[in-house]
């Protein structure tokens, strides 16, 4: 347990961004502040800053993703980096090449940053432990473990709307067990000091040792949503039905789908979030998803400055002090 946090360099600066767990509150606040200062860039007519000029960012996606990959690509381009998209779900690794071989081949092209999405928990940690020392690794989702940039853009959205974290009650609804988004959100919310984190779902979708995450668990919406300030809905994967975790979508929507009636027990100004893509009529009613309490589209917009912030901070740890000042 006394192992060094591989996410930080010798000066405790962010080197890799793999998981929220183990990062201090100040680090998360720095990310949010940097994202705030970069959010102006995306609204200018020339939407670029030179923070990553001359750097090459590689999107290494071992699992399909459109939204996350696109926002990372856009974020990297707005930092003036060159971007290479490597889609690995069907390429080298299925030909028997090991993950390390793949990495070394891409490293040999002199890249500076890997954005990694992988179906196995711990893959980003594994890659960070084995890459050349000049490369930063950003986790864009590993198995059920973590999706820390999504969590940070959610924190950014919450801070924009609510201002402060300390008095907030937050409920996360749905498939907690399989959700890397939920795990990262929980770590971020507790590090930022919210008053209470609740998870809501049937017992088949709540981890059996949820208390290890420091959350309260509820099996019904009327108790779980009572007086909450933030409602985070999670996406339900269709395969949960075939795995005998749920009977059908209809029953799920009836019990856990977010409707006007269910939302009524939350605080009147409760905000509604969803990491997308939405299954309308399964997790959430359209009138809520498109309604005034929903911030779902803002979340998408915020993905860009937050990812820009994280990428530029991680890259700075590789620059000598003088270059950092110039940047």
């Amino acid at each position, binding site marked *: 347990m006394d192992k060094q946090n591989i996410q930080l360099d010798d000066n405790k600066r962010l080197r890799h961004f793999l998981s929220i767990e183990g990062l201090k509150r100040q680090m998360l606040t720095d990310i949010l502040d940097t994202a705030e200062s970069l959010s102006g860039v995306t609204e200018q007519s020339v939407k670029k800053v030179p923070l990553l000029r001359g750097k090459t960012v590689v999107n290494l996606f071992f699992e399909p993703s459109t939204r996350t990959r696109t926002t990372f690509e856009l974020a990297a381009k707005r930092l003036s980096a060159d971007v290479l998209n490597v889609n690995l779900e069907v390429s080298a690794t299925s030909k028997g090449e090991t993950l390390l071989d793949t990495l070394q081949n891409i490293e040999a092209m002199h890249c500076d940053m890997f954005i990694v999405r992988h179906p*196995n*928990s*711990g893959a980003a940690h594994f890659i960070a432990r084995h890459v050349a020392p000049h490369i930063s690794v950003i986790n864009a989702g590993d198995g059920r*473990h973590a999706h820390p940039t999504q969590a940070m853009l959610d924190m950014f959205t919450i801070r924009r709307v609510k201002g402060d974290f300390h008095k907030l009650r937050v409920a996360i609804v749905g498939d907690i067990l399989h959700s890397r988004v939920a795990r990262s959100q929980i770590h971020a919310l507790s590090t930022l000091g919210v008053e209470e984190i609740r998870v809501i779902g049937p017992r088949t979708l709540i*981890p*059996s*040792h949820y*208390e*290890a995450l420091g959350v309260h668990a509820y099996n019904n919406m009327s108790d779980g949503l009572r007086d909450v300030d933030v409602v985070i809905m999670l996406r339900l994967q269709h395969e949960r039905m075939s795995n005998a975790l749920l009977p059908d979508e209809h029953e799920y929507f009836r019990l856990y789908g977010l409707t006007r009636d269910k939302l009524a027990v939350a605080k009147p100004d409760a905000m509604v979030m969803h990491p997308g893509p939405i299954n309308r009529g399964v997790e959430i009613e359209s009138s809520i998803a498109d309604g005034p309490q929903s911030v779902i589209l803002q979340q998408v917009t915020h993905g860009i400055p937050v990812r820009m912030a994280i990428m530029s901070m991680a890259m700075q740890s590789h620059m000598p002090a003088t270059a950092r000042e110039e940047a």
Partner: protein
Amino acid sequence: MRALIRNGHIIDPANQIDAIHDIAIDNGRILAVGQIPGGFTAEHSIDASGLIVCPGLVDLRAHLREPGQEHKATIASETRAAARSGITTLCCPPNTQPIIDTPAVATLIYDQAHAAGMARVLPLGALTQGLAGTQLSAMHALKEAGCVGVSNAMAPLGNNLIYQRAMEYAATHQLTVFLHAEDSALADKGCVHNGAVATRLGLPGIPTAAETVAVATALALVEETGVRIHFSMLSTARAVRMIARARYDGLPVSADVSAHHLHLTELDVLDFDSSCHVRPPLRSQRDRDGLREGLRDGTITAICSDHQPHEPDAKLAPFSTTATGISALETLLPLALKTGNESNINRSAILASLTKGPAAILGIEAGTLTPGVRADICIFDPDRYWTLNKNNMVSQGHNTPFLDWELQGQVRYTFLNGQCVFEAAD
């Protein structure tokens, strides 16, 4: 060869000897302990003052990788590691390639071990053909070829009817069935204990019930068939209590635990350390304590290594996709001694779980220094500290989380059939 080991502290749990004596070896067998016959002259004499002299260790579970996976290890390489570790008898599970479901494979293993000459290797035969869980193996022929028991290794059996019949058929031939108690449906794609660490790391968990359901099923079938069952590598405190109850009720069941399950817990997996990726998974602190309690109260009568050497690449991947297992022969004795120190189990009882206990489970004449038996002897310095590292490891597999641990208790000499097969260099 005639050898004399002088002034050693002899611990022979089978004969309840725990005292300083001389021991004489003649013609590959123990000649005498204590009173050496007048006129005995030794060609080879060892001063064992300050050292413990005990029967050669018997390891119930060691994967030697041969035949079929020689890139991981060979019988020659691993029996050399065994000799270095004071282990003189190794029992290997049937999941070699080809599988030990025909007499020829068992014979090959005997031949290779004999050629290497560093340790005795006893194969377990497959319970079902190809370990596929559907058709019974030719257990009688396997027994004739020297298989000391039968096992389906880690593979599941098709259904409980096949399970019951396999047990009945094994009982027909007085073969002990070695079981790895895991319900494969409940274990599903899990790779760690379903506990706090699985929840935090988002790794798929294997619940405690995967073991307890399998133990309950096995116990019900033992009652039905009367077959002798040995549970390999228990991992949960609950299963230990179930087996304690079954033994109290007089069922013919026994159990072992691996040395690493006595020391590591799910917390050692934090940081996705693939060297701690093992099956059954490392469980909670409470489970580890329960395993130690089972060892203390005699429910568990053997400590095995569950030795699984791998090539480096097998552990270089994201956690759940890495191969399971630890290269464990060289830490068996020091970890067992450490368990004794930490849990207040006396040295004789710990050594019993490495000698007399496993020998009784196998039903072989080993694990004792009784005059007349083959002279398999381990001589170790109980006070010597040493550190295991990749340079001094003898096993071909270097996959162990115990690298750089300071270990207490180092083997100085190992005798197999009265021949010295290992002598420490320094």
